[in-house]
């Protein structure tokens, strides 16, 4: 970390939206184009353009405070709940701009699920954790609810561990189990994309490994965007990486490309310093 180039040397890539050279044919589910966020007149990030490739693991890295979580929040419009937050630019989800004022937010959040850094099971029984969102989205039948819950819990490898305690409070599970429960809960709504904000940072290495393996499996069916500080984890799971940095307190995109290129021969010296500084 010692010999990072100073900000004045920074050559940040052009702001316009473009795909990675070797991924021109890969489909994108989400396209972030020239996106800026201001909170109370203060720029949090500006001019971010990133393609999120379908059925791949897209990883977002960058120092603390550069706006990664804010970017994820923007994709499902959680920023609406922050006082005086203003988004500019475009976020296309399946070719529709979700910043459009008449965008159906419930539909958006059904299509794009989000998992938070701290596991967030509802403080009630495991079963209820599934019942409430399913009922909200029209699954009223108990048998259907149970079936959907079971298949989701199986796909995160939690079914065996919890099948005898479905009526126990979800908070009684371990941290890793809670995080998988949250992923399963999100999966029951059949989303197209999963956004995960540092999903392993509150977990022990073994739980982290289970989640990593889970993500690698889930990318067969889902588009995944993960924020992580753990670069070795990023190396293990990423297909594409976007690297953010901040200039004058404001988050900027430095580089985005295939994972192999970002980790082995990035075009920006700042990227290479960051990637090596942390790994080396």
């Amino acid at each position: 970390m010692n010999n990072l180039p100073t900000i004045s040397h920074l050559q940040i890539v052009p702001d316009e939206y473009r795909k990675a050279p070797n991924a021109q044919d890969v489909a994108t589910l989400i396209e972030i184009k020239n996106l800026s966020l201001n909170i109370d007149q203060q720029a949090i990030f500006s001019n971010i353009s990133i393609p999120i490739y379908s059925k791949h693991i897209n990883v977002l890295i960058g120092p603390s405070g550069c706006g990664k979580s804010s970017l994820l929040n923007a994709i499902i419009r959680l920023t609406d709940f922050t006082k005086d937050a203003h988004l500019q630019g475009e976020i296309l989800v399946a070719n529709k701009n979700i910043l459009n004022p008449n965008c159906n937010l419930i539909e958006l959040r059904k299509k794009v699920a989000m998992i938070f850094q701290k596991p967030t099971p509802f403080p009630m029984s495991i079963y209820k954790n599934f019942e409430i969102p399913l009922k909200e989205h029209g699954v009223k039948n108990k048998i259907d609810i149970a079936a959907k819950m079971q298949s989701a819990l199986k796909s995160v490898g939690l079914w065996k561990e919890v099948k005898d305690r479905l009526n126990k409070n979800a908070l009684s599970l371990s941290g890793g189990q809670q995080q998988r429960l949250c992923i399963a809960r999100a999966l029951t709504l059949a989303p197209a994309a999963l956004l995960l904000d540092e999903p392993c940072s509150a977990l022990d290495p073994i739980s982290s490994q289970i989640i990593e393996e889970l993500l690698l499996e889930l990318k067969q069916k889902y588009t995944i965007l993960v924020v992580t500080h753990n670069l070795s984890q990023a190396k293990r799971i990423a297909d594409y990486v976007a690297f953010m940095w901040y200039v004058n307190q404001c988050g900027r995109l430095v580089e985005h490309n295939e994972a192999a290129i970002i980790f082995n021969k990035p075009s920006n010296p700042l990227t290479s310093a960051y990637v090596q500084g942390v790994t080396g």
Partner: protein
Amino acid sequence: MPPRCIDNLFLRFIQLVSLVSIVSLLFIIFFLVKESYLIVQEKPILTVFTDPAWHPLDGQFLLLPMMVGSLLIMLGAMLIALPIGLLTAILCRYYAPRWFATIIQRLMEVFAGIPAVVYGFWGVMVIVPAIAAWQAPGTSLLAGILVLTFIVTPGVTIISYHNLSQVNQTLLHSAIALGLSRYNIIRHIIFPEVKHGLITATTLQSGRAIGETLAVLMVCGNVVQLPGSVFEPIRTLTSNIALEMAYAMDTHRSALFLSGLLLLLIVLVLAFIAESMQKPKAESQ
């Protein structure tokens, strides 16, 4: 002075303060018991339920209608104030635009600070004539309930709002991220989180409601009777004390102290009920 020493002193100070509050509480109870002893000595305690009427100067000490009156206006006021306060808080916290929420919040703070007697005057000037135009004489159980509602609603709103602000933000965000509607978020996520805070609010405000004296005395009519409808006048235990203590002597005076003791007992029972409602959470965690 070494920090440990300061810490110690502070601890002693806190212990002293809590001791003082407990002792003064016991002192008040002792005082009430002592002063009501005279009446208990002369008549069996159950006469407060069985005497034909409240004519203390003629040796009749029926307190039952006043106990009922106290409980009725408290329950009535809380039944109205709780939903209004909670809904106002929810409206301000989750639905209303910021400027509107701020105005309501400031207003509630102002209303909470107005002395109860002002509400009493307002009740005499506005509520009582309004009810009288509909059902004479106006001074009634209903007037008492309405005035008390105005007295306790700001407190309920403020405490509810405060509780809502303390709901875990990530939990809330994850509920939003699951595409839950506001109604379901409030019902399934927020309400369970704030329930215990609401019980606290209810207990405190109920204590205030049942202890409220002057405002109630001004609008309730104070006729000692079991009300046949909300339009009939009632007398509360507190009003009874305030109305008659100044000129009461001997057994009359002692019976008034007994009213106070009964009030204390009612509040004790309410506090125990509130406490037992809180318990399940304490055990589950």
